[in-house]
């Protein structure tokens, strides 16, 4: 399944760092809210 505009975002579950702690994020837990999902090449890169 590949992401396309106008179609459901692929759901995922993954570990995360959040305000000093470790947690798990599940995209479908955010249904009912607008979500800005931002990928980037890596931590400690310059841009």
């Amino acid at each position: 399944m590949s992401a396309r505009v106008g179609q459901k975002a692929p759901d995922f579950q993954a570990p995360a760092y959040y305000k000093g702690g470790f947690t798990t994020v599940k995209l479908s837990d955010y249904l009912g809210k607008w979500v800005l999902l931002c990928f980037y090449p890596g931590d400690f890169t310059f841009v």
Partner: protein
Amino acid sequence: MSAVADKYATLQELGAEVLSVSVDSHFVHKMWNDHELVKMVDGGIPFHMVSDQAGNVGRAFGVWDEAQGIELRGRFIIDPDGVIQAMEVLTPPVGRKFGETVRQLQAFQHVRASKGTEATPAGWEPGQPALKPGPDLVGNVWKVWQPKMER
């Protein structure tokens, strides 16, 4: 990501949540936050920093770079129904412009609030007239919108 964190309050006011994703582990996210980002953003990163070490999330969203083993700069606006409304993917050396993301979010929220009866023309910003697609608008867009209106 510090650029988004710095404007996080704006997104919260718009009812939007942020999730950042990279192939770094959540342990490295913590180190980056604690040792560098906290020097750019008061209190550090206010949103969840997701770890996608195997690249599975990136593959699902089409931003996985197989050759480099990293994720491209992909930004997705997902609506409350879980539908992707916008996507923008950049190669690594160029950063995103936060203001354009906010403008698109506001435009999609405007369209959603109108239950799809309105559309926003090029460069639309909140407060400007939107378009009401229908038979009367055919051939008459020039009466309500001109290219010079785009700021």
